[in-house]
């Protein structure tokens, strides 16, 4: 592995926003004329804190319609561990939560896949994220504590009982039962960690943040919920509750609220714009909301110092993009990709798949991100190269 040069401390957090419906690329990449989707980050004074990267691809099979958006963080196959879950055990070892998988609205889509390639469940309710960060009332904490400790003795008994059951079943079935035994042991460790954290005090709630009085996670309110999720991620980072996040923006089949008004067609249908100007404009208007949330989030990080003196922006890699290259045509080539912060020397735009930068595997970028975070790896998924020369 190429050792990180100099003495600059490594980024220790990773945040990924992935949309299921891509981004409208003529307004996304920084080498375009006045890209509308970058206006928000530029206006927030973050013009030198990000790089957009074009020409990246997973080289996976041409998927069935939207299936390919699930491969954003996994690479060629969707049945593989995602980037965030690959790094979470190390990055998340010291925080209350190893990682958080969030989804705006009730779409329940997840960017994160476990080691066995199964999509991890997402949290869709902002109030749940809030309670995770700041804890619940004393009664339910006492109860949680009881449930955890009794759960641990329960697992002990089950282990004993399943051990004797194991002797009775056939050899083939033993492998299946071993999945159970392994899981019991792993969950015991998880409960132990949970119990330890439960005994440590939760941070004081931020007086400036208020949850809406009634929670509504319907698909129509995907953008409102996205805003809440961005703010909650910033709070979770400020309180150092968690260091690895994915936030999925599901493609909605129904109409959605864009500000006060319901759109007349669905987000998904705008993404099939066929280059009709008024549809493109609606799509961009929706996508601008993603980028406004990102800009607010990144600005907060930039204005907040980390414990080691650098800004939270520098100690956090934020990746924004999609596994859907062109939703209008269900195309998976040339994925929209944006990297912000993380202590990189940002150059606004890198064009991959060219003579200057022949790399074109999206996972080349992931290798670079992983190395920057201190992982000793030269590959991710099917990629065996990196973008270290371009993004350092």
């Amino acid at each position, binding site marked *: 592995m190429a050792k990180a040069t100099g003495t600059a401390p490594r980024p220790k957090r990773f945040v990924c926003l992935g949309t299921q419906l891509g981004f409208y690329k003529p307004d996304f990449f920084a080498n375009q004329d006045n890209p509308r989707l970058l206006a928000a980050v530029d206006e927030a004074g973050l013009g030198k804190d990000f790089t957009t990267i074009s020409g990246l691809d997973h080289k996976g099979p041409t998927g069935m319609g939207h299936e390919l958006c699930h491969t954003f963080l996994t690479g060629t196959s969707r049945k593989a561990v995602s980037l965030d879950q690959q790094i979470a055990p190390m990055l998340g070892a010291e925080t209350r939560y190893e990682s958080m998988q969030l989804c705006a609205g009730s779409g329940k889509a997840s960017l994160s896949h476990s080691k066995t390639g199964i999509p991890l469940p997402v949290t869709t309710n902002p109030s749940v994220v809030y309670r995770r960060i700041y804890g619940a009332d004393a009664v339910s904490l006492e109860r949680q504590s009881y449930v955890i400790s*009794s759960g641990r003795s329960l*697992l002990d008994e*089950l282990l004993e*009982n399943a051990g004797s059951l194991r002797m009775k079943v056939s050899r083939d079935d033993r492998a299946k039962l071993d999945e*159970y035994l392994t899981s019991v042991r792993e969950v015991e460790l*998880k409960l132990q960690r949970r119990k330890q954290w439960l005994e440590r005090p939760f941070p004081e709630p931020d007086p400036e943040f208020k949850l809406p009085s009634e929670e509504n996670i319907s698909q129509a309110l995907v953008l409102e919920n996205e805003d809440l999720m961005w703010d909650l991620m910033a709070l979770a980072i400020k309180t150092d509750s968690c260091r690895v996040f994915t936030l999925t923006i599901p493609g909605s089949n129904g109409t959605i609220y864009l500000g006060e008004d319901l759109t007349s067609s669905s987000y998904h249908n705008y993404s099939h714009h066929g280059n009709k100007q008024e549809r493109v404009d609606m799509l961009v208007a929706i996508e601008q909301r993603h980028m406004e949330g990102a800009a607010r989030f990144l600005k907060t990080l930039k204005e907040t110092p980390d414990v080691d003196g650098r800004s939270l922006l520098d100690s956090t890699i934020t990746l924004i993009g999609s596994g859907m290259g062109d939703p209008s045509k269900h195309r998976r080539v*040339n994925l929209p990709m944006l990297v912000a912060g993380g202590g990189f020397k940002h150059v606004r735009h890198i064009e991959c798949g060219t003579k200057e930068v022949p790399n074109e595997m999206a996972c080349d970028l992931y290798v670079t991100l992983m190395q920057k975070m201190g992982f000793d790896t030269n590959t991710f998924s099917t990629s065996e190269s990196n973008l270290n020369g371009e993004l350092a």
Partner: protein
Amino acid sequence: MTTVKANVLLLAFGCLLAALCQPTRASELSDSRFQFIQSFCMDCHGPIGQEGDFRIDRISSDMSDERFRDQWELVLDYVKLRSMPPEDAKRHPSDLERDAFVRSIEVAMKAADESAPVGKTALRRLNRNEYLNTINDLIGVRGFKLPNSFPPDSTDLPFDTMPEGLFLSPALLDAYLETAGLVADTLVPQRVSPQLHRSTAAFIGVDLARKWTKKGDPAVYLTGANTSPWSGGIWVPNSAAKAPGMYRVRLLASAEGPVGADDKPLRFSFHLSNPTDYPIARRALNVNHPRVASVDVPHTQTNWVECVVPVERGEVIYAFCENRFSEPPLPYATKQQINQMTAAAKASNAPTLRVEAMEVSGPIAPLPRQLEFLNNEKPSATDEYLRAMLVPFAERAYRRPLTNEEADAIVSHSLSHVSKTKVAPSPPAYAIHYGLRRILTSPEFLYLETESEREDDYKLASRLSYFLWSSPPDKTLLDLASKSQLSDPEELRRQVARMIAAPRSDQFVKHFAGQWLENRKAERLMVCDVRYRWSELIRHGFIRSTELFFGEVLRDNLPIATFIDSDFIYANEPMLESWGLPVETSISKHEANLRHYMAFPELKRIRLDEIASAGSSRLGERGGILGLPSVLAATGDGVESSPILRGVWVLENLFGTPAPPPPADVPAIDVDISNAKGVREILNAHKENESCNKCHQRIDPIGLALENYDAIGGWRTRYQRSYRVSDAKATHEDLPDSSKDVQALSVSIDPTGQLPDGFELEGPEDIKNYLLANRELFTRCLTTKLFEYGTGREPTMGDRNVIDQIVSREPESGYRMIDLITELVRSDSFFGPER
């Protein structure tokens, strides 16, 4: 026009040569077979040629060797279908030689099969759906939901009943623990301090109701028809119950105007609903929301009216004005219509409820069902009490009687837990709580058929009920099992008929047909509404039309040939309309997208001859599985149809002769398709390469014969727009971003083609005709699908033998659905004696 070069991947002969394979020796083979291989195969598939990476001399001649059997099957197919030797081969066998070779392989296979043992289903955990059904069956609590953290099952395998896909991960075990805790919380009354939620008029939650306020009056006025979804429910915000229990709801209210529509005093009715089921902004009075109580509202004087109602965790109490109007049900009203009705109600000085405040407090007492669960006794931490409480629960959970050791372990662990725990509240309740959690996280509950020593009817009861109900066996099945009567063939016939007649067989329709006939994909399908008329009501129609069609064949025990072709379909108006059929529809476009807000009307059964005689011949293209929109749409991507995916689907799911997947790493070859005028010419590229053609000669003609169906199953005679090369899925890899459109405006569709055996296809009718003429193909395919779903395993050779016997016993008039299922269930493969 620029030259378009597509990378068409070489489709190699799927092959798993390994070092362990035993070479075929002349002595092992019959002379004629050896001769045939030497003369017609070895040039290309021997040590010198190794075409397609396949060497026929490297596969064992032992037909019972599972490692090579697939390859022999392929050899058989290729020779039988005259794909091999290829046209340009030096030598070709005579028909006589070919037949003799085929027969000799078939005989060898048959001999091997007849002696092969049936397979054994591996231990497997319940899938997500079975797990939830089992929990619901155990506890019978309204609206019980799995926690958000509950991970989904893998979707890699044809059916979610197959052990290979049912991995038990730590995340899942964690979710089992959490769910077990929720179940125990639900059954055993918890000590929760009651909470009071109160709202004054300004803060009461109100849906799209006929309600208004008056200046200077601190109240909200309500009216509304209780039959409309938008009827004016009110609730206290944020009052969702934190624990199940009895809750007191109070309203400071009065009635104004005359009595209600039924000449009785105006009253509030109380309904319960979990707000996470419905978007808050559109909480509707839905017929499914249980109405739990009602209370009269006194006239003139403002008073507290109150009521105590049983509430489950997460539910909110909604109050409605019950007997206000007698107008007919309104399936849906726009905001504007509601405003008009409200204005009319105000103007007519109609009866009205005036509400100043609303309060919800609780839980003030345990629910009756919770007391009943505790046998209406005060729980005590004694051996007797816990035994009486936990053992029957465990027996239902494990779907069999407990051994003495098992019962002792559960009781003693729960008892000792209480003595160890320092938690203050109610130790006896905690002992039960703990015991329940232990039962619900033990492998005996989570895995099917764990107790390998007991080869008995209990296992059969579970196998049967998870097959046809996706649920645990009911009392009847367990009683029969306890008397060892269930495995009796006549009893099995009776039980299968009883189970299919029961409402729970909906689960079989939903999950077997849902996976076989692609309803699960239809659920997630994203359709381009620029190109197609599309709404949620159409999606609902797609899903229900498959369920109703399959359900009718199943429950009415119709001939299985109905699946191939039928003289009836189920459809709703918007579906027909989207297919371009002239239909008068009464549902607005907006309404049609309110799937989550309202109950859509059920589909109509349509007899195709009635439609035809009514002047539209267009429905002649419907009927059977090939006319089901869920199938036609799931094999496209919501924008374009894909003849290849359709062809592959039909081979796999109707012919039962799946095409091997395209090999992952074969070198790409260039095919010039610059002059292609549409999908047919693009697919013709497959013919130029023998390795592509091997599979595509079977796939492409079927897909092309279905090209008159567009991406969502509508009928078309011409392609309406430019046809994109990539959409034809002619390539296994994506094309460069540029030059992707082939100008093929308004090309007419040519559905003709030929199956490898020479059968001419001119459209979907001919695929149906082919299947009807070769009915053993479909019978075997359906039997195999049922077998795979029911046992969760791929058939072994012994199983295939059993399936073949079932196929060979098909009566002259063809199998009927229940009869076929009965045959399968009674076979050794479903639940064999040697297990």
